[in-house]
């Protein structure tokens, strides 16, 4: 039983890390209906800036996370301005291909010598690990940190989207750009803001990821990005609680497969769950089927 609980905690940690990335994915999708494939790479840039922050620049780690989030927010807005805004009224596939292009650009540009370099870096954790044993189950301070951050981000985002003026603007834009503009919403600024928030979330996720799994390199964003995207789709893309739920399911599925079935099947089973859920509920677990707008 202790063993089972320990695996549940392992799954929770992995799931929450996916959730940090999935929240950004789902938010951008919710507002502009664009799958931002560069999101996983913004996550990578965030991890690197955070790493430089607390190792090279000597910042305290909470400040390093903040700096990383700010830098990535700017990067996110820049990407939106350069790669997506000119294509806003093009077909969706064009924007998608542009997103894949941005993704490759970030990966390979950051691999250049004068950027982050193509090599793996070992992250020295900015604080010592502490372990607590609660009823036979071991919990580390890193797991607690990830848990608190993810919950705060989820609540914060829900508040931002549902209760603030900017949130109202975001929801308006998500329905119809032109109508929103007629209502006096600054569409460009709202979308730019959305990208900024999404990128900042990815950056926070990246730094926490680098602390939890202390090795970073420029292609580290691909797999977590893909899994987080899957999680967002599983939960119902565009919905913030859906991303969280999907990510938690993904994390548990992977860990439980590795723990009780076979480590060779972990990805296979995680993705099979996605296919099965989508067969039954094409809009994801929390997604609602909307009538086609004509």
């Amino acid at each position, binding site marked *: 039983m202790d*063993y089972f609980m320990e695996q549940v905690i*392992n799954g929770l940690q992995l799931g929450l890390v996916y959730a940090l990335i999935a929240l950004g994915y789902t938010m951008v999708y919710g507002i502009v209906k664009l799958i931002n494939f560069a999101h996983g790479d913004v996550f990578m840039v965030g991890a690197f800036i955070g790493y430089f922050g607390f190792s090279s620049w000597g910042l305290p780690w909470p400040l390093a996370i903040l700096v990383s989030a700010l830098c990535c927010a700017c990067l996110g807005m820049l990407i939106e301005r350069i790669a997506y805004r000119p294509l806003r009224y093009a077909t969706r596939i064009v924007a998608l291909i542009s997103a894949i292009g941005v993704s490759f650009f970030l990966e390979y540009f950051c691999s250049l010598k004068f950027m982050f370099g*193509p*090599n793996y870096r070992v992250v020295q954790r900015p604080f010592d690990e502490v372990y607590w044993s609660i009823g036979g189950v071991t919990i580390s301070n890193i797991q607690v940190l990830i848990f608190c951050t993810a919950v705060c981000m989820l609540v914060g985002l829900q508040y931002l989207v549902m209760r603030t003026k900017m949130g109202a603007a975001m929801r308006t834009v998500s329905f119809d750009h032109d109508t929103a503009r007629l209502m006096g919403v600054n569409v460009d600024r709202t979308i730019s803001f959305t990208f900024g928030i999404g990128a900042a979330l990815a950056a926070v996720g990246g730094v926490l990821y680098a602390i939890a799994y202390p*090795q970073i390199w420029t292609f580290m964003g691909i797999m977590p990005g893909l899994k987080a995207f899957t999680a967002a789709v599983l939960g119902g893309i565009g919905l913030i609680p859906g991303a969280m739920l999907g990510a938690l399911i993904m994390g548990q599925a992977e860990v439980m497969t590795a723990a009780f079935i076979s480590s060779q099947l972990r990805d296979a089973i995680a993705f099979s769950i996605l296919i099965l859920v989508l067969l039954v509920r094409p809009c994801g677990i929390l997604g609602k089927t909307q009538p086609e707008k004509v």
Partner: protein
Amino acid sequence: MRVSKWVALITVILFSMSIIAGCGGGSGGTTPAGGEEIRIGLIAPLTGDVKTFGESVKNAFEMAMEEVDYKVGDFTIKVFIEDDRNMATEAVNVADKLITQNKVSAIVGSVTSSSTIPISEVAQANSVVLITPTATNPKVTVDAARKDFVFRACFIDPFQGTVAARFALTELNAKTAAVLYDQGNDYTIGLKDFFKESFVAGGGQMLAEEAYTKNDTDFSAVLTRIAQQKPDVLFLPDYYQKASLIGKQARDKGITATFVGGDGWDSPELDFVAMDGGYHTNHYSADDPRPEVQEWVAKYTAKHGQTPDALGTLAYDATKLLLKAIEDAGSTDPAAIRDAMKALNGFGVVSGSITFDENGNPIKSAAILQIKDGTQKFITIVNP
């Protein structure tokens, strides 16, 4: 009007001719008068997850070349160095480039088995001699049939895995072992299989055999399970980056087993704190008192400011072997070099004296090193 047109046309022709001439000069321009040229390529992972391997190999390759002043027999050597980033596809690309574009007679490389197995096919198909310093998987030289243009300067994984298993059984008195391996990497799969075979044959018990993929970073689930089973030894047959990451997480999960690994651990970037107390097999030890070894260590340290790792040492040996074969052959024809290579008998290099068996593998001993207090401590030598 007409005149100026002609002038423009002639200018364009002259210009393009100079470009063509420039290209020709670029690839073959350094041939001195009177000497023939032999082209040799080097493929190594200069960047990426095992870049310290590539750096050592490149340093050692260049040292071997400088020692002979880029001359062998009557030939001047022209060197082409390519980076494979430890990716199989990239390795094939650069091997194709070296063979078709740079027209090399022989290639030294690559370093890892997963990159070298595909390029051994390319070299064999194009009849170009390939000698790898450190790719230990058996499939490098024999896969379905013997690839007779391919040689290596190192021992092979069946031997390395056996040595590790026997060491765990007899010296560490291990009864039980667990292994984590990369299911997409021939090197780790090979080592895992051979370790398991000998460990079980010697009366040991394998408690767990867990797979992961190259991009995995979270090993918590399987490590929690292994922590429950409490094996005596945790075998981590991957390169230094992954082994370090797993080793650290294993200690986080409270696993107290002794870590054991292969030659992939041999890097200054191994996490010496997490892996402290672990043992790994290697091709040589810098503490070996033989004069060849000490002379080489002194030479390398003087030039590069650090003791050479096994990868550098074997790259030096591989280059020396190739140069000797070219000298014996007296030809740039890869088939002649291949025959000269096969005929080598007891040729002395740093890591031992080399005679190739019928599969292009030298018969060599293995060293066992321990990670202790931030350095590698020489423990013992195991003969085949």
